[in-house]
């Protein structure tokens, strides 16, 4: 399966005469390594995509729990407690209990987000690791391949040759890029929602800061992580360019979002609007067909 003979897409004599940076013999050696790597990276993409979606689903459960607790907290002063109303300090006790739960749920929501960032980083990483470079080892007669570019003339794509049957490395990369782009856009939208969800919990607390801003780091190391996957350049995480910056800060501090607003947030979280499931399935089907393997 992995020998080049199984995929005779370019006759050796033709490759030998062309001024390609990968002569036929090295292409023959490159292909099995490239195929193995390509399968690995796409199975990473497949796994990370599933995990990311699972983290979103967890996040959704925590966010709606948080919203429910928040609303009962807010309704506490007017809530009819029936016979309980005569118990001393009952409302205060209930309130502090609810506030504690609010804190727990926002912590869980934040962990779900952290997991999403982590899975997104795997997605980005895999999409950037599709090339195989030959390893410069002058003393070793066996050609080896790695993910690091040693020679500037080696672009790691086998000179644009098909890796399996039809697709070149570049084509695999652009499919992966299309996939990653959906998750990146959705992740940004989720982060905006997360700011709002975490802010409602903050408003109950004693902290001086009453709302979170886009530029805030939401957990230790978020900034580093986002930088490492190329989502953030420099110290500040700037909002996507096509977003309207003035509206981003349009929430008035101290003003609690209405029930309808929270409903919009939850629906937006759940909808995964930037994730085009049918296109994703299509991409994976294409790739599986090309590689002749099943990824999930």
């Amino acid at each position, binding site marked *: 399966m992995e020998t080049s003979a199984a995929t005779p897409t370019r006759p050796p004599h033709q490759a030998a005469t062309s001024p390609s940076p990968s002569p036929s013999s090295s292409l023959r050696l490159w292909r099995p390594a490239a195929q193995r790597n390509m399968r690995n990276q796409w199975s990473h993409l497949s796994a990370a995509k599933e995990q990311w979606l699972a983290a979103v689903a967890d996040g959704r459960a925590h966010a709606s729990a948080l919203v429910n607790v928040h609303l009962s907290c807010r309704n506490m002063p007017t809530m009819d407690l029936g016979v309980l109303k005569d118990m001393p300090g009952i409302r205060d006790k209930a309130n502090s209990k609810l506030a504690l739960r609010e804190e727990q749920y926002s912590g869980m929501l934040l962990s779900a987000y952290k997991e999403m960032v982590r899975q997104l980083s795997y997605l980005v990483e895999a999409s950037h690791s599709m090339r195989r470079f030959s390893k410069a080892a002058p003393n070793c007669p066996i050609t080896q391949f790695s993910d690091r570019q040693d020679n500037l003339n080696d672009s790691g794509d086998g000179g644009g040759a098909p890796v399996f049957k039809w697709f070149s490395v570049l084509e695999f990369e652009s499919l992966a890029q299309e996939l990653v782009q959906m998750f990146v856009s959705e992740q940004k939208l989720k982060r905006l929602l997360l700011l709002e969800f975490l802010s409602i919990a903050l408003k109950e607390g004693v902290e001086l800061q009453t709302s979170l801003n886009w530029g805030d780091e939401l957990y230790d190391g978020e900034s580093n992580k986002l930088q490492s996957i190329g989502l953030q350049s420099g110290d500040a995480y700037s909002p996507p360019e096509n*977003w309207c910056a003035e509206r981003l800060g349009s929430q008035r501090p101290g003003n609690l979002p209405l029930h*309808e607003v929270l409903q919009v947030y939850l*629906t937006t979280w759940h*909808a995964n*609007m930037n994730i085009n499931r049918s296109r994703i399935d299509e991409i994976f089907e294409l790739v599986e067909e090309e590689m002749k393997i099943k990824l999930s």
Partner: protein
Amino acid sequence: MEAVVRKVQQRVRKAREEMDQWDDLNTRLLSQFSNAAAVISRLQALGEDKNYGPLRAVPNIRVDLIGNQMEVLELIFVKIRETLEKFNDVVKALNKALRDTKQMVRGGSALTAKQMQLQVGILPSIAECLDGFQTLCEMHHDEFTLKSSAISLLTWKTCSSDIAVLRQLLVDQPNIPKDEVQSIFDIIFADEIC
């Protein structure tokens, strides 16, 4: 005569298995209905720009979200129609069973009206069995018609009070009163009760 009654009972027993699916289907229908109702009840809030807070920074968010929810709703409607089709299958199966049973009774030696009414011991008469069977079929048929029209009234524009009424109709199943169904079975299977 007794043999004919036994055969009719046998047919009704088989038809009863079809009817047993009805409640499962209704549970499914109710859950699909609730899903649709949840989406519909959100739509109003999603339609108003002021409910988006800082999300308004994201271009086209409102239009995209509503479009997405309409798609979700459409998918639920497709599932609901599938469930309705299954109800219809049950109705059709019951009607066919009734027709076949009548055929069977008529196909034997021609029975006089008196023989039809004849009651042997605690066994029901053939006429009683057929009448009961017919009533059961009509109940399910009418209930299917009611469900279909209730569902056709459910659209993205239906207000929440109407949704509550429709839901109650689906829960109540007014054309299939449980006690009446039971008393029909009690008559047809009178000999098995004691």
